[in-house]
């Protein structure tokens, strides 16, 4: 496994090297001008900004993230099962029934989330 992933480590070094070199190249080659107060302001269609980044945002984003974690873990459970499914069918219908129960619970949870309006954006 480590052997298989060695090229990944080499590539990480290559990419980080590329990022550092190209950013420092821009730093050396680019023009150097004294920044003015207007230039350093956050971009806002040309007029002075009246609000900053502490703008409130919808709690829906948190909800989506939580739902994602719930469902993503269940998807991860499906992966190893999918791999052995056809081979294990030779040993009887247990693997089929088991997964149908799992899917029923998952679908029930999904319907509950849907009916609770957790998926609505308005």
């Amino acid at each position, binding site marked *: 496994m480590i052997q298989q992933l060695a*090229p990944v480590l080499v590539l990480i070094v290559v990419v980080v090297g590329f990022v550092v070199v190209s950013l420092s190249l821009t730093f050396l080659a680019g023009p150097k001008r004294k920044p003015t107060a207007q230039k350093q302001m956050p971009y806002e269609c040309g007029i002075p900004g009246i609000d900053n*980044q502490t703008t409130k945002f919808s709690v829906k984003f948190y909800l989506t993230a939580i739902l994602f974690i719930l469902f993503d873990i269940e998807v991860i459970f499906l992966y190893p099962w999918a791999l052995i499914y056809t081979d294990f069918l030779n040993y009887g219908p247990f693997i089929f029934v088991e997964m149908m129960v799992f899917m029923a619970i998952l679908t029930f949870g999904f319907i509950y989330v849907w009916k609770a309006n957790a998926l609505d954006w308005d």
Partner: protein
Amino acid sequence: MGSGLLEFIINTLKIALIFVGIVSTVPLLVWVERRGSAFMQNRLGPNRVGPLGLLQLAADAVKFIFKEEFIPQKAEKVLYFMAPGLALLPAALTFVAVPLSTPVTVMGHTINMQMADINVGIIYIFAVASLGVYGILAAGWSSGNKYSLLGALRASSQMISYELAMGLSIVGILMIFRTFSLNEMITAQTGHLSFIWQGSTTTVSWLPNWGIFFQPVAFVLFITSGFAETNRLPFDLPEGEAELVAGYHTEYGGFKFNMFFMGEYGHMITSSALITTLFFGGYAIPFMSPDEVLKFWMGHAQGMAGLISLSAADIASILTTLTHLVSFLLKTGFWLFVYIWVRWTLPRFRYDQLMDLGWKTLLPWALANLVITTVFMFFARVKM
């Protein structure tokens, strides 16, 4: 030790070559995108610098380097500089696991045409690709601009939503191929369409043995979520310029902006390569297994062996690899073109429509596809 060192050098060279390949494909794709969009909108596009405007790419790269380095006052400096790298890194890393062609054997050395033969390739790609969210979130949060923050939130929310449908759509494919390794998936997809139906083998001689014929719904789900994962139109809400200026990279310019751009195109390349590998037989040529291609070239290599100082087997091996590489590039290139084509054809979604499509349409369809596949395989005992 000596052969180990040689292997290490070959592998490092291979990695460097493929990385340079990706980095130089990106400007080419940008050129295709600009010329192609111009063609679709009945205008000319960049055609001044070099033949057909091809040198525009070089001009752009030089321009990026000579831009002023600029840090907005409210930015978190460390994160602000790290974010472009964080966005580029996963895009480059995902391509590692994609098999480009058959292994080539020259003078006793076998070189894999894949940077890393990872036995859980598909999981590796999904795991690394989902790290792309961090670069975007870091960029949006560290810029100190409300448009950036909103764009980053939208992007991350959209990417995790569509990751679910994408992950679920793959399960059916895994049930059929019974492997996580992309190489074994391609091997399973060679030849004519054939499957075991209740104990007896059925062959359809006029169709290749591609994954799309086993899982057509999964293909539609996968390609749709692929568009959302790469933040391309019709799902490019994170940078919807009419509402958010430019989204998470509003405060970026010069080479740092270029890196976000390269990241997006890198994800596009990997996504196209993955569509090819999972649903269209990867590098394999339709109806022909790699062995048959090798046998074909063996017949022709005898005559060429006298011209170059290589044995006939070596020449045949090289030619086989090249043939498969061309096949892979053609298939992947086609899906890349579809990406560009769709961008200039469809209008943008509204944000609530986008989330509805992800959670209320794609996810139930993926679940239904999975259950139907499971039940069908249980009763009909279909096997690949």
